[in-house]
């Protein structure tokens, strides 16, 4: 057995934002197995104070460059709930379609560009341009389709413009929607090739039992609003989110931390699949079964597989949404009039990395008095920390070298697809 380990990863690569790994083992004792968040804080809750209702989503989209559509949707839902606004059916469908576009682009970005190089023993996806151009072409096509989908529905992939308080400000034409439908169906072939590729990769064999939190789907796999649920059996209303997150400050991190029934819990694709497995599209369920993903799965590395399963779900669900949208009358309203009033509203949305909450208190003039945002990665930090400790413990017995341990721990953090800038907003 190897008795000493020293791992220092300053600014972990292929993740969004700045985090570091530090591991010290002396004489077989784990002195430290730390996941440190050193991202610069931006104080978005402070920036929001005094802002008018129509600026809140434009501002909070800037919390994140990857999941800005998710932030926009959570922000709008908080504002709409505060004002007591119900948006039209067509807008609801368009919003979920935009959400699917974002989930697809984010998951494909993570699977191909951030996670896959680890499994292939590469420092980045760039060498694949020469060695495996067909894989790069598939990745580019899939991510490109997802981005085009965001552009079409949300007006832009990063920092959307067409999703606004009261509904949507732009509706794609029937022809554009049907063209997107064709593209989605055509992409199934590329998705199949991606699945074949991921089937050849070896997912590290590691489990640590933990609690998984997600939105609670009723009839459909959940993305926007509804009750909150955990695999330990806790159920809360959307506006009771603070009791679900119990956010607190820690000395060693510029992101806050969260806890629920145990020392830590996890959110994200795996948490969604674990809590809502039966609501996945049947094709996605079939894939999950083929890849050995059954609820409740406690291997954090399986989050990558859960992302792939969600890509299948979102692809088929998008086709279904488009079918429903084109059946609606052309003049179906997509936005209602907004009448600001004093009140408090919460918006919970499942973004690629897990459940996201925005809460705003408005005054009579529709200006923000107080704001709170709780980000998925904030909820995952403690779980990453606990996983890393356990991962070091079990692999220490196997006599793993510093270099191998460094790679494995980096892969663990990447498996969560952390959005560190988001978590330190």
């Amino acid at each position, binding site marked *: 057995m190897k008795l000493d380990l020293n791992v220092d990863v300053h*600014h972990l*690569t*292929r*993740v*969004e*934002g700045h985090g570091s790994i530090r591991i010290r083992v002396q004489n077989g004792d784990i002195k430290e197995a730390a996941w440190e968040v050193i991202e*610069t*804080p*931006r*104080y978005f*809750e*402070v*920036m929001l*104070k005094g802002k*008018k209702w129509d*600026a809140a989503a*434009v*501002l909070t989209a*800037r*919390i*994140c*460059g*990857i999941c*800005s559509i998710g932030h926009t949707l959570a922000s709008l839902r908080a504002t709409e709930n505060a004002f007591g606004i119900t948006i039209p059916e067509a807008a609801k469908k368009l919003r979920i379609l935009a959400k699917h576009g974002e989930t697809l682009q984010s998951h494909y*970005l993570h699977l191909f*560009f*951030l996670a896959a*190089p680890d499994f292939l023993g590469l*420092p*980045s*996806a*760039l060498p694949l*341009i020469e060695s495996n*151009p067909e894989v*790069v072409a598939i990745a*580019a*096509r899939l*991510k*490109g389709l997802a*981005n085009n989908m965001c552009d079409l529905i*949300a*007006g*832009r*992939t*990063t*920092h*959307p*413009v*067409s999703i*606004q308080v009261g509904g*949507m*400000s*732009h509706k794609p034409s029937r022809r554009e929607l049907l063209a997107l439908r064709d593209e989605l169906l055509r992409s199934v072939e590329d998705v199949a090739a991606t699945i074949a590729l991921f089937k050849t990769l070896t997912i590290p064999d590691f489990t640590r039992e933990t609690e998984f939190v997600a939105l609670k789907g009723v009839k459909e796999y959940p993305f926007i609003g509804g009750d909150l649920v955990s695999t330990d059996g806790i159920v809360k209303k959307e506006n009771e989110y603070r009791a679900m997150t119990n956010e607190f*400050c*820690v*000395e060693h991190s*510029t992101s*806050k931390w969260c806890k629920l029934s145990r020392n830590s819990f996890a959110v994200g694709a795996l948490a969604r699949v674990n809590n809502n497995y039966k609501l996945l599209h049947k094709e996605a369920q079939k894939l999950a079964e083929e890849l050995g993903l059954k609820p409740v799965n406690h291997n954090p590395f399986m989050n990558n597989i859960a992302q792939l399963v969600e890509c299948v779900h979102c692809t088929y669900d998008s086709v279904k949404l488009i079918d429903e949208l084109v059946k609606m009358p052309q003049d179906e309203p997509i936005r209602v009039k907004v009448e600001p009033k004093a009140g408090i509203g919460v918006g919970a949305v499942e973004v690629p990395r897990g459940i996201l909450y925005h809460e705003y208190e408005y005054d009579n003039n529709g200006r923000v008095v107080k704001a709170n945002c709780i980000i998925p990665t904030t909820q995952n930090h403690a779980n990453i920390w606990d996983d890393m400790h356990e991962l070091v413990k079990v692999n220490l017995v196997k006599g793993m070298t510093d270099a191998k341990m460094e790679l494995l721990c980096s892969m663990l953090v990447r498996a969560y697809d952390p959005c560190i*800038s*988001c978590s330190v907003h």
Partner: protein
Amino acid sequence: MKYLSIEPARPKVAVFDFTDCEGCELQLINKEETLVDFLKAIEVVNFREAISNPSEDYDIAFVEGSISRADEIDRLLTIRKKAKVLVAFGTCACFGGVHKLKNVHTTYEANKEVYGDMPKDTMPVRSVGEIVQVDFSIPGCPVSKAEIERIVQHLIWDVTYQYPVYPVCFECRQRFTICRFDLGELCLGPVSAAGCNAPCPAGGMGCWGCRGVAEAPNFVEYFELCKRHGYSKEEVLERMNFFGGFAEVTGVK
């Protein structure tokens, strides 16, 4: 990849991020139809979000984000020393971006509101150009990938890049987008710098001026136009202050 029998330079490019959302970096790996050619035209040697084997030997540094911590200043000074060309990449780097909205509060107030009794290290937000000399600025929140491609082509062939001198309105007309003012909305399009292809008005939102001021804007006429449509000067200034690109007009630094 020869062009007219000339082998172009393949500049070593490094990408660095500071206080920000990393959305502009993400734009670099978007626009998939030209992504492979783009990555072949340059040599990406340092890009934490995408690659794990960084090099400290680079020609062009794309610097993203605003500056709000002492360690960021040190890191930026080092990058400035090593880079032949330093590009302020995105609205945060160019003007400080939305982060400057924090500056109306003291760092004590900001910390108290967010972290309670466990304050974190922070200082008033500054743009990259307020700390080091910037050779080139690419504004936008996020930056436009099409524009980056044009600019990188110019850098590779060592040809001076000329930004569009016209305002966003011009690009709206080119796209046949209905004027947001005519639809009853405030828009900074008449006085904001173009080059983004005006995606916001086309998507149903008036311009918020993320690329800063257009060349030679007529502010007197613009404020009159806003007034005619029922917007007060305060309201317009509030929007101009949002991305920090209108600091000379709003007076807010």
